[in-house]
């Protein structure tokens, strides 16, 4: 491997004009869609300046009891006595302002503050109920002597994770949108599309260009080219992931505001049942790592396919079908509670779910791996690493002994 070769291999990938056209189009489209929300009253009239006051109000036992007695359906007027006068003033300042001449702006911060607090209690109770359910289910199974069942192992493990996981906090920090970046399909799909477009021809273009005989008869034209193409391909896919993640982070941050306080993951809207004791930031960083890993896996796969194909279309189509098929499946199939089944496995082990780990970590999900309960997210990582490993092995062996028949 040599820096000059890697540089040239990288140049071959990025000198395709259509890649740049797609990147520019996608970026513009993404920014355009998101900046529509900029004017959204929820964004415009943020509760952030009165964060502390709301937190204090939410912490009150008394308000909690009122909340539960009313079935989590209370109004702003019920909360008002628990807020300071300056906070009320801030919330009510918009009472005579109209949004787009129709909706009174005032209702928005008022309902938002109510929602936040109600939801806070509701989620605490939901999580508590789930833990209670697990305990009674385990006790039930114990009574029936089903200690060796796989479900018993799963629930024991899950309960252990819940008990160590900490507590739900009031969710005021705007992590929801950042956490959702990959859950919405656009960023993962575009990242993958650009990677696949860029790498589909990495070997097959040498055939199309009739350059492969010269490569294959050069001293470093076999091992050297294999490792250089791999390095250039992985570098390219890493840059794709980082670019689209930065774009999404910047756009989301500009529209919804950047958050400087971290919060436990279970405090976010979709994650009340997560067994993982992660913070929102940790989740977000893991998701970027997952995206990088998924990019590496798909790059390895398409590089391998390209080494065996005489044009770039076939590897693009095959790898695209694999990613797209498992993606559609992941968005379609209803994931079963606790334990993956044969129907849900293609979704739960898909590269998309490595890019967007929300579904895998927002509740307790496990896979039966030789009788032990493994969190599906880890199984996904192992499975995908195996795919990458096998792809690279096949690619290496195929290319090192490659013959030029025609």
């Amino acid at each position, binding site marked *: 491997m*040599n820096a*000059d*070769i890697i540089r*040239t291999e990288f140049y*071959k990938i990025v*000198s395709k004009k259509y890649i740049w056209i797609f990147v520019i189009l996608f970026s513009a489209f993404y920014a355009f869609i998101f900046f529509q929300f900029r004017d959204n009253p929820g964004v415009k009239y943020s509760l952030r300046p009165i964060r502390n006051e709301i937190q204090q109000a939410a912490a009150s036992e008394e308000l909690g009891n009122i909340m539960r007695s009313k079935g989590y359906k209370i109004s702003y007027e019920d909360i008002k006595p628990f807020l300071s006068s300056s906070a009320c003033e801030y919330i009510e300042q918009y009472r005579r302002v109209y949004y787009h001449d129709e909706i009174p702006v005032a209702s928005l911060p008022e309902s938002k503050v109510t929602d936040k607090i109600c939801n806070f209690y509701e989620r605490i109770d939901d999580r508590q109920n789930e833990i209670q359910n697990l305990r009674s289910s385990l006790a039930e199974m114990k009574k029936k002597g089903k200690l060796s069942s796989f479900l018993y192992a799963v629930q024991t493990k899950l309960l252990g994770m819940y008990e160590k996981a900490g507590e739900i906090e009031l969710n005021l920090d705007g992590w929801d949108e950042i956490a959702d970046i990959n859950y919405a399909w656009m960023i993962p799909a575009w990242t993958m599309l650009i990677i696949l477009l860029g790498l589909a021809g990495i070997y097959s273009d040498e055939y199309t*260009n*009739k*350059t*492969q*005989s*010269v*490569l*294959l*008869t*050069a*001293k*470093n*034209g*076999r*091992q*050297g*080219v294999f490792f250089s193409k791999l390095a250039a391909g992985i570098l390219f896919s890493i840059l794709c992931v980082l670019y689209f993640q930065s774009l999404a982070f910047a756009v989301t941050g500009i529209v919804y505001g950047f958050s400087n306080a971290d919060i436990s993951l279970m405090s976010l809207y979709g994650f009340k049942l997560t067994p993982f004791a992660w913070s929102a930031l940790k989740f977000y960083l893991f998701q970027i790592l997952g995206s990088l890993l998924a990019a590496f896996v798909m790059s390895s796969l398409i590089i391998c396919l390209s080494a065996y194909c005489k044009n770039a279309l076939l590897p693009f189509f095959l790898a695209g079908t694999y990613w797209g098929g498992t993606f559609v499946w992941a968005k379609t199939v209803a994931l079963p509670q606790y334990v993956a089944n044969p129907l849900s496995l293609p979704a739960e082990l898909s590269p998309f779910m490595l890019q967007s780990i929300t579904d895998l970590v927002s509740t307790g999900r496990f896979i039966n791996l030789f009788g032990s309960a493994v969190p599906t997210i880890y199984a996904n990582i192992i499975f995908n690493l195996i795919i990458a490993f096998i792809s690279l092995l096949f690619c290496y062996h195929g290319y090192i002994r*490659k*013959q*030029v*028949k025609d």
Partner: protein
Amino acid sequence: MKLTIQNVMKTFGEKRAVNDVSLELISGVYGLLGPNGAGKTTLMKLIVDILTPSAGRITLDGVDITELGAAYRDKLGYMPQEIGVYKNFSAKKFLKYIAALKGLSGREAESKVSELLGLVGLKDVANKRLGGFSGGMLRRIGIAQTLLNDPQILILDEPTAGLDPQERIRFRNILSELSGNRIVLISTHIVTDMEFIAGQIILLKDGAVLRMDHTENLIRTVEGKVWSAVLTHEQFNSIKQLYSIGNVMQRSDGMEVRIISDKKPLEQAKPIQPILEDVYTYYFGGTAK
């Protein structure tokens, strides 16, 4: 240095593209002559190890070339019949890339590339995109590419196809400047290219070696078998059914025809001095050109 090809065979399905070829190449220039489909390209691919023989083996100084691997490729310069390039690369960028593949360091590559661009007469367009190059210019890039690592084994598959007369002369000069202890194997179906370059000629037909000898010895084998006669159109038409015909030249008083025949073909035919082209016509049959 001795490149040995031992009973090598290559089949594609039923087709025997190379059929039991055995050759021993030591330093010198070898011309591989044969009509289209004779198996020249296939034999060369076997020699440069981008095809694996169906039977037999190829060794360099006794060691199998597949075993030598990178060490063998390090000695190799190969110009495929169809040379490809990256259209969006400049000539210089392309050659520097191949130089890196051949293991040259950045500095070595820099000087070698500009030296070779000068040698093939493309210095002025060094920074131009290869997409705009003519076929002849691309062939010259192909020749430059093979020489980057100063190869000891040079395998050139129809290097002169598509070159104009001037470029052919330049190519011949480049080859004669390549001094010393090298094995150079050049395939062609254009015989005149080989006359002055090749020390030895290998005649390949239907995948098998018909003959291999020094050029002058081969020419000697057709001595007394080459005739010249001036013929009318009707005479020519009947003669060409019976004999192999070499060069035909239009003259005011008819057609001057080169006839290859063991016996005197016609009363007015005169024996003439053979050239390499007559060897080709003798072994592969000629058609009026």
